Protein backbone atom coordinates (compact mmCIF):
# COMPACT_ATOMS: atom_id res chain seq x y z
CA UNK A 1 0.00 0.00 0.00
CA UNK A 2 1.09 3.53 -0.73
CA UNK A 3 2.88 5.30 2.13
CA UNK A 4 0.70 8.39 1.90
CA UNK A 5 -2.40 6.24 2.12
CA UNK A 6 -1.00 4.50 5.23
CA UNK A 7 -0.30 7.85 6.87
CA UNK A 8 -3.78 9.00 5.92
CA UNK A 9 -5.37 5.95 7.58
CA UNK A 10 -3.29 6.31 10.76
CA UNK A 11 -3.95 10.05 10.76
CA UNK A 12 -7.66 9.27 10.46
CA UNK A 13 -7.41 6.98 13.49
CA UNK A 14 -5.69 9.75 15.44
CA UNK A 15 -8.44 12.21 14.48
CA UNK A 16 -11.19 9.76 15.47
CA UNK A 17 -9.48 8.97 18.79
CA UNK A 18 -8.99 12.66 19.55
CA UNK A 19 -12.63 13.40 18.75
CA UNK A 20 -13.78 10.55 21.03
CA UNK A 21 -11.43 11.81 23.75
CA UNK A 22 -12.72 15.39 23.61
CA UNK A 23 -16.32 14.13 23.52
CA UNK A 24 -15.76 11.98 26.61
CA UNK A 25 -13.91 14.76 28.44
CA UNK A 26 -16.53 17.31 27.46
CA UNK A 27 -19.40 15.26 28.85
CA UNK A 28 -17.57 14.20 31.96
CA UNK A 29 -18.19 15.71 35.35
CA UNK A 30 -21.02 18.06 34.37
CA UNK A 31 -24.09 18.38 36.52
CA UNK A 32 -27.35 17.24 34.96
CA UNK A 33 -30.68 18.22 36.47
CA UNK A 34 -33.10 15.37 37.15
CA UNK A 35 -36.87 15.55 37.53
CA UNK A 36 -36.65 14.83 41.26
CA UNK A 37 -39.46 12.28 41.09
CA UNK A 38 -37.29 9.30 41.92
CA UNK A 39 -36.60 8.77 45.60
CA UNK A 40 -33.74 6.65 46.85
CA UNK A 41 -34.41 4.58 49.95
CA UNK A 42 -31.24 4.49 52.09
CA UNK A 43 -32.13 0.99 53.27
CA UNK A 44 -31.78 -0.40 49.75
CA UNK A 45 -28.17 0.81 49.65
CA UNK A 46 -27.02 -1.08 52.71
CA UNK A 47 -27.15 -1.21 56.46
CA UNK A 48 -26.19 1.77 58.59
CA UNK A 49 -26.66 4.23 55.73
CA UNK A 50 -28.50 7.45 56.47
CA UNK A 51 -28.97 10.52 54.33
CA UNK A 52 -28.23 14.14 55.22
CA UNK A 53 -30.87 16.44 56.65
CA UNK A 54 -30.35 18.94 53.82
CA UNK A 55 -28.89 16.88 51.02
CA UNK A 56 -26.84 13.83 50.18
CA UNK A 57 -23.97 13.24 47.77
CA UNK A 58 -24.61 9.65 46.74
CA UNK A 59 -21.56 8.29 44.95
CA UNK A 60 -21.54 5.01 43.02
CA UNK A 61 -18.15 3.40 42.63
CA UNK A 62 -16.83 0.12 41.34
CA UNK A 63 -13.84 -2.04 41.95
CA UNK A 64 -12.12 -1.17 38.69
CA UNK A 65 -12.28 2.60 38.76
CA UNK A 66 -9.31 4.90 38.84
CA UNK A 67 -11.22 8.11 39.49
CA UNK A 68 -13.43 6.82 42.31
CA UNK A 69 -10.92 7.29 45.17
CA UNK A 70 -10.24 10.91 44.17
CA UNK A 71 -13.97 11.58 43.78
CA UNK A 72 -14.64 10.07 47.20
CA UNK A 73 -12.05 12.31 48.79
CA UNK A 74 -13.44 15.39 47.06
CA UNK A 75 -17.10 14.67 47.85
CA UNK A 76 -16.29 13.89 51.49
CA UNK A 77 -14.58 17.26 51.69
CA UNK A 78 -17.56 19.08 50.12
CA UNK A 79 -19.90 17.29 52.54
CA UNK A 80 -17.79 18.31 55.52
CA UNK A 81 -17.92 21.93 54.36
CA UNK A 82 -21.73 21.90 54.14
CA UNK A 83 -23.49 21.08 57.43
CA UNK A 84 -26.46 18.77 56.87
CA UNK A 85 -24.92 17.32 53.70
CA UNK A 86 -23.80 13.70 53.86
CA UNK A 87 -21.55 11.77 51.51
CA UNK A 88 -22.45 8.13 50.85
CA UNK A 89 -20.30 5.84 48.70
CA UNK A 90 -21.83 2.65 47.30
CA UNK A 91 -19.76 -0.02 45.57
CA UNK A 92 -21.69 -1.29 42.54
CA UNK A 93 -19.41 -4.29 42.08
CA UNK A 94 -21.78 -6.43 44.14
CA UNK A 95 -24.92 -4.40 43.41
CA UNK A 96 -25.73 -4.73 39.73
CA UNK A 97 -29.40 -4.31 40.67
CA UNK A 98 -28.67 -0.68 41.62
CA UNK A 99 -26.79 -0.04 38.36
CA UNK A 100 -29.83 -1.28 36.47
CA UNK A 101 -32.38 0.52 38.62
CA UNK A 102 -30.69 3.91 38.31
CA UNK A 103 -29.30 3.46 34.80
CA UNK A 104 -25.69 3.95 35.84
CA UNK A 105 -23.38 3.53 32.86
CA UNK A 106 -20.12 4.74 34.36
CA UNK A 107 -18.33 5.06 37.67
CA UNK A 108 -17.99 7.29 39.48
CA UNK A 109 -21.57 8.53 39.11
CA UNK A 110 -22.82 10.94 41.76
CA UNK A 111 -26.47 11.59 42.61
CA UNK A 112 -27.30 14.77 44.47
CA UNK A 113 -30.31 14.00 46.65
CA UNK A 114 -32.51 16.57 48.33
CA UNK A 115 -33.67 16.33 51.96
CA UNK A 116 -36.36 13.80 51.00
CA UNK A 117 -33.93 11.53 49.21
CA UNK A 118 -35.22 12.49 45.76
CA UNK A 119 -32.64 12.61 42.96
CA UNK A 120 -32.26 16.32 42.17
CA UNK A 121 -29.22 16.09 39.89
CA UNK A 122 -26.59 13.65 38.71
CA UNK A 123 -22.94 13.91 37.69
CA UNK A 124 -21.34 11.29 35.47
CA UNK A 125 -17.61 10.83 35.90
CA UNK A 126 -15.27 12.69 38.17
CA UNK A 127 -17.11 15.92 39.10
CA UNK A 128 -15.93 19.34 37.93
CA UNK A 129 -15.30 21.73 40.83
CA UNK A 130 -18.42 23.81 40.27
CA UNK A 131 -20.70 20.88 39.45
CA UNK A 132 -21.21 19.58 42.99
CA UNK A 133 -22.14 22.94 44.52
CA UNK A 134 -24.39 23.64 41.53
CA UNK A 135 -26.10 20.29 42.13
CA UNK A 136 -26.50 21.03 45.84
CA UNK A 137 -28.11 24.35 44.98
CA UNK A 138 -30.61 22.57 42.74
CA UNK A 139 -31.38 20.18 45.61
CA UNK A 140 -31.67 22.85 48.31
CA UNK A 141 -33.76 25.30 46.29
CA UNK A 142 -35.96 22.48 45.05
CA UNK A 143 -35.46 23.80 41.56
CA UNK A 144 -36.29 20.35 40.36
CA UNK A 145 -39.90 19.28 39.98
CA UNK A 146 -40.16 17.24 43.17
CA UNK A 147 -43.53 17.68 44.77
CA UNK A 148 -43.54 19.11 48.28
CA UNK A 149 -45.78 17.32 50.74
Amino acid sequence: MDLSLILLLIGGLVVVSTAVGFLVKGLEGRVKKEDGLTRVDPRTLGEDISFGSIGTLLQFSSEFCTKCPGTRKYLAQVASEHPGVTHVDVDLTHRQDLAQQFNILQTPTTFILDDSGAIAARIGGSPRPEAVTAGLEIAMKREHDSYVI
Partner: protein
Amino acid sequence: MSSKKPNPLAAKPGTAGIDPRGPRFGATITLITLTVELIFLLASPTALSSSNSLVQNFATPAGILLTLIVIIFAIGAFAGIGKHPYGAIFKALVRPRLSAPEELEDPKPPTFAQLIGFIITLVGLVFALLGITTGAVIAVAFAFVAAFLNSVFGYCLGCQIYVLLVRAGIVGRGGASA
Protein backbone atom coordinates in the same frame (compact mmCIF):
# COMPACT_ATOMS: atom_id res chain seq x y z
CA MET B 1 -21.83 7.57 55.98
CA SER B 2 -20.01 4.56 54.70
CA SER B 3 -16.98 5.36 56.80
CA LYS B 4 -17.43 2.26 58.95
CA LYS B 5 -16.61 -0.05 56.15
CA PRO B 6 -13.09 -0.18 54.77
CA ASN B 7 -12.96 1.41 51.39
CA PRO B 8 -12.78 -1.38 48.81
CA LEU B 9 -11.32 0.83 46.12
CA ALA B 10 -8.19 2.19 47.72
CA ALA B 11 -5.05 0.16 47.62
CA LYS B 12 -5.42 -2.33 50.44
CA PRO B 13 -3.22 -1.81 53.47
CA GLY B 14 -0.23 -4.08 53.20
CA THR B 15 -0.45 -4.29 49.42
CA ALA B 16 1.38 -1.66 47.50
CA GLY B 17 -0.58 0.82 45.44
CA ILE B 18 0.94 1.82 42.13
CA ASP B 19 1.79 5.19 40.68
CA PRO B 20 -1.14 6.01 38.33
CA ARG B 21 1.27 7.60 35.88
CA GLY B 22 2.90 4.19 35.27
CA PRO B 23 0.03 2.62 33.26
CA ARG B 24 -0.36 5.84 31.29
CA PHE B 25 3.33 5.76 30.39
CA GLY B 26 2.90 2.11 29.37
CA ALA B 27 -0.09 3.03 27.21
CA THR B 28 2.13 5.48 25.33
CA ILE B 29 4.67 2.75 24.49
CA THR B 30 1.79 0.43 23.54
CA LEU B 31 0.43 3.16 21.28
CA ILE B 32 3.78 3.41 19.48
CA THR B 33 4.07 -0.36 19.02
CA LEU B 34 0.49 -0.53 17.72
CA THR B 35 1.26 2.27 15.25
CA VAL B 36 4.25 0.32 13.93
CA GLU B 37 2.07 -2.79 13.73
CA LEU B 38 -0.50 -0.89 11.67
CA ILE B 39 2.26 0.28 9.33
CA PHE B 40 3.48 -3.32 8.94
CA LEU B 41 -0.04 -4.58 8.24
CA LEU B 42 -0.92 -1.81 5.77
CA ALA B 43 2.47 -1.55 4.02
CA SER B 44 2.29 -5.09 2.73
CA PRO B 45 -1.27 -6.33 3.06
CA THR B 46 -0.49 -9.32 0.90
CA ALA B 47 2.31 -10.55 3.21
CA LEU B 48 -0.38 -12.28 5.25
CA SER B 49 -2.34 -14.74 3.18
CA SER B 50 -4.98 -17.33 3.92
CA SER B 51 -3.13 -19.68 1.58
CA ASN B 52 -0.07 -19.49 3.83
CA SER B 53 0.43 -21.79 6.80
CA LEU B 54 0.05 -20.34 10.30
CA VAL B 55 3.83 -20.44 10.70
CA GLN B 56 4.36 -18.56 7.43
CA ASN B 57 1.95 -15.85 8.53
CA PHE B 58 3.62 -15.70 11.94
CA ALA B 59 7.07 -15.27 10.38
CA THR B 60 6.23 -11.83 8.96
CA PRO B 61 7.07 -8.49 10.62
CA ALA B 62 3.38 -7.96 11.37
CA GLY B 63 2.99 -11.47 12.80
CA ILE B 64 6.04 -11.28 15.05
CA LEU B 65 5.36 -7.79 16.39
CA LEU B 66 1.69 -8.56 17.08
CA THR B 67 2.73 -11.72 18.94
CA LEU B 68 5.04 -9.63 21.13
CA ILE B 69 2.27 -7.11 21.79
CA VAL B 70 -0.12 -9.92 22.80
CA ILE B 71 2.54 -11.45 25.11
CA ILE B 72 3.15 -8.11 26.84
CA PHE B 73 -0.60 -7.58 27.38
CA ALA B 74 -0.78 -11.15 28.75
CA ILE B 75 1.98 -10.40 31.29
CA GLY B 76 0.10 -7.29 32.43
CA ALA B 77 -3.24 -9.12 32.60
CA PHE B 78 -2.18 -12.38 34.25
CA ALA B 79 0.95 -11.53 36.26
CA GLY B 80 -0.52 -8.18 37.29
CA ILE B 81 0.26 -4.64 36.26
CA GLY B 82 3.01 -4.54 38.90
CA LYS B 83 5.05 -7.00 36.83
CA HIS B 84 4.42 -5.24 33.52
CA PRO B 85 7.61 -4.79 31.46
CA TYR B 86 6.74 -1.18 30.58
CA GLY B 87 6.05 -0.56 34.27
CA ALA B 88 9.61 -1.71 34.97
CA ILE B 89 10.89 0.84 32.42
CA PHE B 90 8.76 3.51 34.10
CA LYS B 91 10.12 2.64 37.56
CA ALA B 92 13.73 2.55 36.37
CA LEU B 93 13.88 5.54 34.03
CA VAL B 94 10.86 7.83 34.43
CA ARG B 95 9.64 7.82 38.01
CA PRO B 96 13.00 8.87 39.53
CA ARG B 97 12.71 12.08 37.47
CA LEU B 98 9.15 12.86 38.60
CA SER B 99 7.88 14.21 41.89
CA ALA B 100 6.13 11.79 44.23
CA PRO B 101 2.64 10.84 43.06
CA GLU B 102 -0.25 12.64 44.78
CA GLU B 103 -2.12 9.42 45.21
CA LEU B 104 -1.44 5.76 44.69
CA GLU B 105 -3.89 3.68 42.74
CA ASP B 106 -5.31 0.21 43.16
CA PRO B 107 -3.45 -2.05 40.70
CA LYS B 108 -6.67 -3.90 39.78
CA PRO B 109 -8.14 -1.36 37.32
CA PRO B 110 -5.12 -1.17 34.98
CA THR B 111 -4.74 -4.95 35.26
CA PHE B 112 -8.33 -5.32 34.01
CA ALA B 113 -7.54 -2.89 31.19
CA GLN B 114 -4.58 -5.08 30.22
CA LEU B 115 -6.97 -8.04 29.99
CA ILE B 116 -9.16 -6.08 27.58
CA GLY B 117 -6.08 -5.18 25.53
CA PHE B 118 -4.97 -8.81 25.58
CA ILE B 119 -8.32 -10.05 24.25
CA ILE B 120 -8.53 -7.44 21.46
CA THR B 121 -4.97 -7.97 20.24
CA LEU B 122 -5.33 -11.76 20.54
CA VAL B 123 -8.30 -11.57 18.17
CA GLY B 124 -6.09 -9.49 15.86
CA LEU B 125 -3.33 -12.09 16.06
CA VAL B 126 -5.74 -14.92 15.21
CA PHE B 127 -6.86 -12.95 12.14
CA ALA B 128 -3.21 -12.30 11.21
CA LEU B 129 -2.20 -15.96 11.54
CA LEU B 130 -5.20 -16.98 9.42
CA GLY B 131 -4.06 -14.44 6.82
CA ILE B 132 -7.09 -12.16 7.18
CA THR B 133 -5.32 -8.77 7.03
CA THR B 134 -8.49 -6.68 7.23
CA GLY B 135 -9.59 -8.39 10.46
CA ALA B 136 -6.15 -7.87 11.99
CA VAL B 137 -6.15 -4.18 10.98
CA ILE B 138 -9.59 -3.61 12.55
CA ALA B 139 -8.63 -5.31 15.84
CA VAL B 140 -5.34 -3.40 16.06
CA ALA B 141 -7.18 -0.17 15.23
CA PHE B 142 -9.55 -0.73 18.20
CA ALA B 143 -6.56 -1.33 20.48
CA PHE B 144 -4.95 1.81 19.03
CA VAL B 145 -7.99 3.96 19.93
CA ALA B 146 -8.09 2.53 23.48
CA ALA B 147 -4.35 3.09 23.98
CA PHE B 148 -4.64 6.59 22.55
CA LEU B 149 -7.46 7.53 24.95
CA ASN B 150 -5.48 6.17 27.87
CA SER B 151 -2.21 7.78 26.85
CA VAL B 152 -3.40 11.19 25.65
CA PHE B 153 -6.59 11.75 27.66
CA GLY B 154 -5.96 9.55 30.69
CA TYR B 155 -9.34 7.99 30.03
CA CYS B 156 -9.80 4.50 31.43
CA LEU B 157 -11.89 2.57 28.93
CA GLY B 158 -11.57 -0.60 31.03
CA CYS B 159 -13.51 1.00 33.92
CA GLN B 160 -16.44 1.83 31.68
CA ILE B 161 -16.51 -1.59 30.07
CA TYR B 162 -16.44 -3.19 33.50
CA VAL B 163 -19.46 -1.23 34.70
CA LEU B 164 -21.35 -2.13 31.54
CA LEU B 165 -20.54 -5.79 32.18
CA VAL B 166 -21.77 -5.46 35.76
CA ARG B 167 -24.93 -3.81 34.52
CA ALA B 168 -25.53 -6.52 31.97
CA GLY B 169 -25.16 -9.04 34.76
CA ILE B 170 -22.21 -10.77 33.09
CA VAL B 171 -19.81 -9.90 35.88
CA GLY B 172 -21.13 -9.78 39.38
CA ARG B 173 -20.58 -10.87 42.92
CA GLY B 174 -17.47 -12.76 43.78
CA GLY B 175 -15.54 -12.38 40.64
CA ALA B 176 -15.78 -14.16 37.38
CA SER B 177 -13.39 -11.37 36.44
CA ALA B 178 -11.29 -11.36 39.59
